[in-house]
């Protein structure tokens, strides 16, 4: 989304501003009415499906709402229970943070590494790009989660190979609390195609003169990568980090399918979203689930805010920052 920052289109493209007439003629007032008319569907959606539900969700989080009975106000009970008496909540937070903090940097590293290798005149470049991208398109599907469940199962493909190599008792991967989450992280990292495509677009914007100048000065490829490529594309790294972070916090399908909807073994794959689903739609504790949703919103907002705050120390915009 914000990749327009690095592209610097000739006309300022951000914000909805633009030309503004000084005097509002009757013609422009008519245009104003038209504007709201065109926005009507969006406004209805905003009020009925976004803003309204957000407020209601906040209200529900202070109630014992369970869908079928009228909600009773319980004050801060839901939040209190969450932070003092709910081990599964802490398990969910721990699992989700581990997932995010391990998978996002790894995924971005692979995405950037392959993008750099692919960013040159190369025979078959579009085929490579397509093949590296493909898991990103397919990886979130139920079908691939099903595949993962077999491959990393007790008698799955991985263990068939490992036994073939002479390992008598390999781990049981998705059935082992120490490994289950890491098979999900592997699945996530495998889907590095879409950040890779964004990196490729960013790398094409790096001015060639920089590399030529560095080559004249005798800089090695490694130096060129760290001294030129990385600093110039920091806005793209930042964009990718934000996008992947928000995406990873909301991951659901893989954990649901691979753990059979339980988050097991021993809650080791209990993603936050999965716990929210279990509380809201299996146990019908919808008030509690609403409170969980608001805490998740807070966590994601905090991570994003920290990222933005840190970005001023390492993200450089070519045009002097915005």
């Amino acid at each position, binding site marked *: *989304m914000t*990749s*327009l920052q690095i*592209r610097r*289109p000739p006309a300022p*493209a951000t914000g*909805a501003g633009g*030309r503004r007439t000084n005097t509002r003629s009757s013609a422009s007032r008519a*245009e*104003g009415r038209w504007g*709201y008319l*065109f*926005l009507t*569907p*969006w406004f*209805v*959606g*905003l009020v009925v*499906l976004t803003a309204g539900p957000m407020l*209601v969700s906040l209200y529900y989080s202070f109630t014992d*709402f369970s*869908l079928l009975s009228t909600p009773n106000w319980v004050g801060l009970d839901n939040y209190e229970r969450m932070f003092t008496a709910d081990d599964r909540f802490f398990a969910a937070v721990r699992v989700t943070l581990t997932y995010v903090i391990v998978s996002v940097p790894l995924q971005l590293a692979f995405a950037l590494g392959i993008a750099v290798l692919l960013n040159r*005149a190369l025979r078959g470049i579009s085929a490579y*790009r*397509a*093949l*590296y*991208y*493909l*898991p*990103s*398109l*397919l990886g979130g*599907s*139920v*079908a*691939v989660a*099903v*595949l993962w*469940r077999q*491959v990393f199962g007790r*008698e799955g*493909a991985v263990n068939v190979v490992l036994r*073939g190599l002479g390992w008598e008792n390999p781990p049981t991967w998705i059935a082992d609390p120490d490994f289950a989450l890491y098979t999900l992280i592997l699945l996530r990292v*495998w889907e590095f195609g879409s950040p890779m*495509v*964004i990196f490729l*677009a960013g790398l094409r*914007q790096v001015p*060639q003169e920089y590399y030529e100048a560095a080559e004249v000065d005798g800089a090695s490829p490694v130096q060129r990568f760290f001294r030129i490529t990385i600093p110039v594309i920091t806005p793209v790294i930042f964009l990718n980090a934000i996008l992947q972070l*928000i*995406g990873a*916090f*909301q991951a*659901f399908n893989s954990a*649901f399918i691979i753990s059979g909807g339980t988050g097991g073994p021993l809650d080791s794959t209990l993603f936050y979203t999965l716990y929210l689903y279990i509380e*809201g739609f299996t146990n019908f504790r919808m008030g509690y689930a*609403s409170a969980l*949703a608001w805490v998740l*919103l807070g966590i994601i907002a905090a991570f994003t805010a920290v990222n933005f705050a840190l970005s001023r120390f390492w993200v450089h915009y070519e045009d002097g920052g915005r």
Partner: protein
Amino acid sequence: MAILEHSAPASAREDAAPVPTRSRQRPRLTLRRVVLQLFLAAGALAMVYPIIWMAASSLKPENEIFRSATLLPEIWQWQNYIDGWNGLREPFEVFYLNSFIISALAVVGNLLSCSLAAYAFARLDFRFRTLWFAVMLGTIMLPYHATLIPQYALYFELGWVNTYLPLTVPKFLATDAFFIFLFVQFIRGIPRELDQAAKVDGAGPFRTYALIIFPLLRPALVTGAIFTTIWTYNDFFSQLVYISDTARYTVPLALRMFLDTTGESSWGPMFAMSTLSLLPLIIVFVLFQRQIVEGISTTGLKG
């Protein structure tokens, strides 16, 4: 997309050899290039190997999946596809049809409602336009959990649970605000002279939208349609929440049910249906690779 036009020399021609200055190095680096090619080819194979392995296993008898390390089946078990297709209470054509119906409605809804809103934001002058635009951008990043429970309660009250309405009606209310942003960017690249000419000819905003902007928006609409299709077809969570009747199941829900009912006992048919379920995505990708790559690289659309 409009962004793309401005920076066309660099990114529009993705497949053109990008770096003329490096070509003079080519003779010197022959060996290195061969190594690079081998490395990239091996990496690409490793990336898609799991999918290939699943497709191959879908044609093997049960015991061979677990025993044999070779990719090609010893016995070609096409029966897996027949068993899988009819493995649930409803045959899979029902689930495919359901998935396609929801996807098609979502596409129509997104393209109509988002292009209407985008036209207003990009071309019309009205009070608080900047404010509403900021609100719209803000909703893009909002996690769906923030609205999930009250939305469910609302649909429950309306009697919409276990119908496709919760999955499609919101698309007609421009809730996928991302596409509004995409279309606004594109409309800004359309010359205003065209609107002005239409105005001189006496066309009001609606006719300008319908006869000038909407047709010219086509490339962005195609991108919107592709991503809406992919997201809807791949969606699992909202379908899981809202659809409970097997006859109304979509492909992902059917796969999950298959896994639950047959357990770990019939991987062949399970893989057969999983492989088939990826086919529409792969076809869309092959047909629209350029639009997908451009959509991701210019806007950060989730692929």
